[in-house]
């Protein structure tokens, strides 16, 4: 499908659509993106922003770029605001919310990392009302980008975000992408991420979705398209969702292998506590020309609440013989043997469960590219995994001595 076809009218998805089965469509349907934030809103936030994780930070408030709150871009990158909507090619399904974003009356933030340069950058999305950020990132040949992308919701009203993000890696480019969606107030979050990988490019993506408290009402839906377009491209995907209360998080991730000798390593960990719901649909597609592809998929969720729900679905669609593909998906409860081991050491049940939950997502957390970000994420999980964080903090201090 071409760019022009994306703008064609598309109906809103329903839970009868295969890739939207577990999305909280009721929450999404209640969201209105009609209000475009004013410049005054964009450049003035009456809340304290979190500490920066990189020297340079760009801030978007309700989808609009805030020049007042942003740093000057690094020398080795170009930044501009394009008045046109985001141009994404090749997205052939699930484009309703992308279309909605494209019809919004605001600019696309374009970031370009110059060839053979190395750039570290944070993009902070602040949601106070509704917003539809559109971002395009181009990492040129041989360049390396460490991008920390954070989403926070501030205020007491339900914030709504519909993000469209397009990332292109040229040949031999590298991207270390850390995405953190953490909500301290009610939020509805929708995103369409399109990621194109060129020849011998490498992307490691780590994504954490969490909320400050179990009673923070949050619904999120991620629709992700990755295309291995260049020979020898590599993707390391690590994502974790920690849900509690009545939070609902759903993701559809399609990784399309269309070039020779490409690799995908995908890991998903979800913890569903309380009455929360988690969905993860990992769709691996290996095209007829993708000889020598290696794809590995490990999707695991932990049911930590009597009324919690988790749906993980690995899908493999392979059209060539020369491929190695592994996949595994589990939905389970805390391991009784591990729990008893910790209890037998005198650790109280609450802390023991926290430690095991921590252990469950630690596979993902270890991939974060920034120590500062990791520290902030760990600190943010204090309410959900109290014992684990306390143990980790004190131990880290001891190791420093």
């Amino acid at each position, binding site marked *: 499908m071409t760019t022009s076809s994306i703008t064609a009218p598309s109906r809103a998805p329903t839970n009868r659509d295969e890739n939207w089965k577990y999305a909280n469509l009721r929450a999404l349907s209640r969201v209105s993106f009609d209000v475009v934030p004013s410049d005054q809103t964009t450049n003035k936030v009456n809340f304290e922003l979190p500490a920066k994780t990189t020297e340079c930070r760009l801030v978007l408030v309700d989808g609009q770029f805030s020049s007042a709150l942003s740093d000057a871009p690094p020398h080795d990158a170009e930044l501009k605001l394009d008045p046109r909507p985001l141009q994404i090619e090749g997205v052939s399904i699930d484009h309703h919310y992308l279309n909605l974003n494209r019809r919004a009356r605001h600019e696309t933030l374009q970031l370009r990392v110059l060839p053979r340069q190395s750039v570290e950058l944070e993009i902070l999305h602040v949601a106070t009302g509704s917003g539809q950020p559109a971002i395009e990132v181009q990492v040129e040949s041989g360049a390396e980008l460490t991008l920390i992308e954070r989403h926070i919701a501030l205020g007491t009203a339900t914030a709504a975000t519909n993000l469209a993000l397009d990332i292109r890696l040229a040949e031999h480019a590298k991207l270390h992408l850390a995405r953190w969606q953490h909500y301290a107030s009610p939020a509805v979050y929708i995103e369409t991420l399109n990621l194109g990988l060129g020849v011998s490019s490498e992307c490691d993506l780590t994504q954490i979705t969490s909320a400050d408290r179990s009673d923070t009402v949050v619904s999120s839906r991620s629709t992700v398209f990755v295309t291995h377009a260049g020979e020898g491209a590599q993707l390391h995907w690590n994502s974790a969702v920690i849900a509690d209360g009545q939070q609902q998080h759903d993701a559809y991730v399609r990784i399309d292998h269309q070039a020779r000798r490409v690799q995908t390593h995908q890991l998903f960990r979800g913890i569903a506590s309380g009455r929360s719901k988690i969905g993860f649909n990992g769709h691996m597609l290996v095209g007829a020309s993708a000889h020598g592809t290696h794809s590995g998929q490990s999707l695991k969720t932990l049911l930590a609440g009597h009324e919690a729900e988790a749906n993980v679905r690995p899908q493999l669609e392979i059209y060539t013989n020369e491929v190695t593909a592994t996949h595994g998906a589990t939905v389970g409860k805390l391991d*009784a043997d591990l729990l008893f081991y910790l209890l037998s*050491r*005198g650790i109280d049940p609450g802390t023991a469960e926290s430690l095991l939950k921590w*252990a469950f*997502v630690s596979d993902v957390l270890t991939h974060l590219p920034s120590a500062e970000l990791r520290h902030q994420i760990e600190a943010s999980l204090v309410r959900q995994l109290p014992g684990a964080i306390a143990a*980790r903090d004190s131990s880290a*201090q*001891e190791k420093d001595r």
Partner: protein
Amino acid sequence: MLEINALQTRIGDKEILRGLNLTVKAGEVHAIMGPNGAGKSSLAYTLAGRPGYDVTSGSVRFEGADLLALAPEERAQAGLFLGFQYPVEIPGVNNVYLLKAALNAARKHRGLPEVDAFEFLTLVREKMRLMQMDEAFLSRGVNEGFSGGEKKRNEILQMLVLEPKLALLDETDSGLDIDALKVVANGVNSLRSADRAVVLVTHYQRLLDYIKPDVVHVLARGRIIKTGGPELALELEARGYDWLLADAA
């Protein structure tokens, strides 16, 4: 310190312990030997409070208190330590996290403040030297990727840091080579004192060459069928269990 009286347990419908009596006094080391399936590990798990091991009758008093009324973590906090036959791996939870959390739980139970970070590290390093363990183990996940011998050393390290009143060591010698056996035995011996007790569950006399027991018991068919001194272990090594089982029958 420990008084077990007519203890009967079952797992599901299967009867495991059938009226077991055992008294362990402070300062003593007891060895419990017996054929496979006798109920040795079940005894250790029952005392530690593992779910699924249901006590149908009998009593267990530990330091005068009703042990069976306590939750597993309360038993540990009260000073009971179980060294597992098959220690589990917990990737993502570092050894140092576990040790600190466990030690502080025990201190809290005794009304003490949390251990000072420097004191804690000094203590752990001292015990690791005794167990001939590299400090790199501290930052690894609990037993993650450890060899069988390393796991057993780690169990004893935890025991030394927690300084329990009563240590139940379930086949701590299995899977150990001679050198590792000496290290583990050295660790256990370092904990021996007039106010502590150790119960060793083992299949082999060789462990008792390094940890001298005061009392040796034979557990079979869910009860203690013979009790003696260290010489009993030597006799079992020479004659096996058949002669005792025949007598018991």
